[in-house]
């Protein structure tokens, strides 16, 4: 009998015993205070306040040109010679690549080759890039969350490896809550091998409960918000 058959057989046998799911009825202590409903704000304002409370930055842009300027500005501030980015059509900012090129900033779309030492060397060089640029599949206002999905031309590492992550979000992809997002995009998880909900910069409080940002993932998250 394979391990699979053994385990499944044991599960089936066990479940036939009296207790089924094993729970008694839950002994309820009624909550002592009635939870308050958070104030209703327009989605973009809610998103902005949630993300900024976590240490992220939201750059409101009225046009593609302003958005491109925000991105190039961040790169210039960090003197980044190159970005690790999604294909421009997935970032959703036509002309971005060209604008970066004009400022002598390279645009690496993160393809990982197979075989060693090519793969390892490539990873080392990707690891030196200071700014990652991505689009956003959808976002959540009540927690300041952006959802990114991997796919062709959409490397996972762009929102992960560099210390700075810039994400371009259009307001029509902004939803009030996670359930609302999933209801609107039921197939989101199917679009790629990796769906990540990113809620602010990387952080830890492991050392004496002291909050530190920028542990393994990006310490800076910038969302460029377009109408």
């Amino acid at each position, binding site marked *: 009998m394979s391990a699979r058959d053994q385990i*499944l057989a044991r599960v089936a046998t066990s479940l036939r015993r009296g207790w089924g799911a094993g729970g008694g009825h*839950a002994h309820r202590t009624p909550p002592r205070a009635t939870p308050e409903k958070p104030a209703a704000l327009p989605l973009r304002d809610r998103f902005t306040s949630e993300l900024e409370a976590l240490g992220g930055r939201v750059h409101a842009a009225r046009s593609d040109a302003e958005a491109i300027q925000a991105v190039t500005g961040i790169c210039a501030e960090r003197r980044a010679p190159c970005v690790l980015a999604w294909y421009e059509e997935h970032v959703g900012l036509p002309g971005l690549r060209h604008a970066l090129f004009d400022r002598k900033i390279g645009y690496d779309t993160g393809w990982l080759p197979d075989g060693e030492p090519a793969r390892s060397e490539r990873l080392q060089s990707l690891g030196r890039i200071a700014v990652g640029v991505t689009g956003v599949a959808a976002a959540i206002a009540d927690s*300041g969350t952006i959802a990114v999905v991997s796919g062709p031309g*959409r490397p996972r590492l762009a929102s992960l490896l560099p210390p700075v992550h810039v994400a371009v979000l259009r307001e029509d992809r902004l939803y009030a809550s996670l359930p609302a997002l999933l209801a609107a995009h039921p197939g989101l998880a199917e679009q790629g091998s990796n769906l990540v909900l990113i809620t602010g910069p990387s952080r830890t409080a492991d050392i004496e409960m002291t909050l530190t940002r920028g542990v*393994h993932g990006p310490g800076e998250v910038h969302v460029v918000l377009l109408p």
Partner: protein
Amino acid sequence: MSGPHEDRMSVPQPLSFHRRAADALSTPDLPQKIERATARLVAARHASFAAFPEGEALRDEARAIRARVVGHLDQHLIRFEAELQKRGGHLHWAATDDDARRIVVGIARAHEVRNVVKGKSMVSEEIELNGALEAAGVHVVETDLGEYVAQLAGEPPSHIVGPIIHKSREDVAAVFREKLDAAEEDVSDAARMTALARRTLRAEFLRADMGISGTNFGVAENGSICLVTNEGNGRLTTSLPRVHVALLGLERIVPTVADLAIMLRLLARSATGQKLTVYSNLLSGPRRRHPSGSEAASEPDGPDEVHVVLVDNGRSELLGTELAEILYCIRCGACLNTCPVFQNVGGHAYGSVYSGPVGAVLTPALRGLDGFADLPHASSLCGACREICPVRIDIPRMLLALRAKGARRSDTPAWVRQGLRMYAWLARRPRLFAVAARAARVATRMGARDGWRRSLPGPLAGWTDHRDFPVFAPRSFQRLWRERERRKP
């Protein structure tokens, strides 16, 4: 960073919770360190739920989801397997911890793995995986900051969510100084120590051949696994190396992505008071390549192989029993944070990977009562755990069930057993009960001052080690009442 690996779990443990707790209570500053962490986490949890009107209803829904899965686990496992395989992942079934270790080492060998990075995984601690990998010549690095420090220090983690709450900043600096040869300026504060760890571990991430992670939830409807972290080590572990191995406890399945969303919202709020963990990472199989190999049509990165190792290790035995409810647990750690026993002694006192209220049930449930018979008694049954649990698990009920099991096995000390039998015998005989009470009064008055005794004999001395014991009343309430009634006209 390399050095001889120490199998943390083989560090000899004193035999009982009682003794380990006594050690913890007499360790200078330990209770304060633990309280600093737990008090903050509990306060954050409560603040978070106070601003979350749908919270109570969501807890009910989440409990129902877990109950449904646990009650029909085989169906969900079969679906999970099929969907994972459809998307190019491999599923391995491990009946025991030994099987699980063999499987993971086997995968490492097959891929000639030399360096492994690990994301947080309680199951990997449970099956004592690191030692097996090191013995096979594989270098393993923990990447969660707290787990990394614990690994360097040669200690097991002491809390599900905060592995080093038992260490102060200075303790961590000492570890970095000793094991990483860190310069003074690099350990001068938490931010710098974190930066040092980030640099050191980034190098490890970039050279790792295999990433091993735990799994917060497997999703049956699309064979995906979800791993949440605040640091991002979970993402790096599962996206950088060519091979990803995920350990998944048999019961950690939810049916759909929508169900997952409910669990994630409750998990973050219960664990740390956050609305969502920084990275909720859902992985469905390996890097997707177009058959043509075209770059434009293939994912640019991600692991080439994904292996999920389903670990039973005693879980299937719990199904259908009065202990099955402990399998609902989503490992948020809230019960640890709110438990006054845990707050005073910390996680190491439980002598097992799973500590706190959940551990007091889960460890004897999975491992049997041998060696863990006192864990179910390490509780005053206050119920704070049940009150805070996001899926409303009735831990006190199961602690009582385990105590009953232990009593039948004669784990109870003789004086308790005989004393209670005698007490129960007397309680059915009210006149004799009253006689025994009068005898007890005489006994308590001996050596009493001011209505109190400063010491009690024999096994009862535990009481008077910490407080005085009152003398019995000269006349019982029932006797006083009878006299009162007789005096009535």
